């Protein structure tokens, strides 16, 4: 299924927040996890939540609130969650730690512009890093759930120009097995 229109609308709001964060910090947050896989598969793998890595908590909070997002305000486990009242089907969460524990090549990040003029966008890890992340998770849950392996295989199939040397290294760093992709 293609990316749904309301998904793209939510992504546009997030892109505005990311651009606001960039203006304040000279750095972009990065969208990771299932959301990155959803975008790179053009919706074949749909995801309703957006995981965000950002080093400056206060700047992210300010950027999100300035663009219509609200903090999860009820008591519970969520300390870094946001929602957008106009996009109630989607949830947003800042995840802790550095991007892939500092193991990824930041020069490979990709800015995906969302608006027609190309002024605002979200930053994604490279496809290689997303595949490695998926296979790292697969290594942990493979006995009960092969969904991350399937996501990784789909991404590997969709992007034939991947840097296989980097991909293999990153998969191994994440604790995955590159041979499941035949590399």
């Amino acid at each position, binding site marked *: 299924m293609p990316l749904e229109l309301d998904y793209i609308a939510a992504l546009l709001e997030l892109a505005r927040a990311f651009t606001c964060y960039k203006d304040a910090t000279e750095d972009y947050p990065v969208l990771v996890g299932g959301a990155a896989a959803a975008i790179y598969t053009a919706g074949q793998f749909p995801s309703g939540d957006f995981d965000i890595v950002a080093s400056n908590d206060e700047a992210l909070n300010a950027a999100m609130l300035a663009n219509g997002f609200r903090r999860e305000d009820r008591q519970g486990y969520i300390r870094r969650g946001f929602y957008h009242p106009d996009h109630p089907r989607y949830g947003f969460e800042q995840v802790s730690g550095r991007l892939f524990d500092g193991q990824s090549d930041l020069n490979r990040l990709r800015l995906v512009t969302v608006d027609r003029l190309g002024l605002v966008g979200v930053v994604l890890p490279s496809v290689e890093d997303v595949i490695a992340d998926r296979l790292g998770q697969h290594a942990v849950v493979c006995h009960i759930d092969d*969904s991350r392996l399937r996501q990784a295989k789909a991404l590997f199939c969709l992007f034939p120009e991947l840097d296989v040397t980097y991909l293999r290294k990153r998969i191994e760093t994440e604790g995955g097995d590159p041979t499941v992709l035949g590399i």
Partner: protein
Amino acid sequence: MTVVSLDRLIEQVEARKLATGLLDTPEATEAMRNKGGQRTPAKRELLRRTEERARARGLAPVAAYY
């Protein structure tokens, strides 16, 4: 950092799907869906609240296991 528009990215991916026979079927989508076994408590709560908000607005939630 390379820059690509979302429209262009989707166009490229959809073309590749056609070329490789990778089909967007409900079965393929379901097979790729995280079954939820390793989710953190925070993520489960986020998904639960998101589903609740969607239903409160009369919208179908995005399917997720949690």
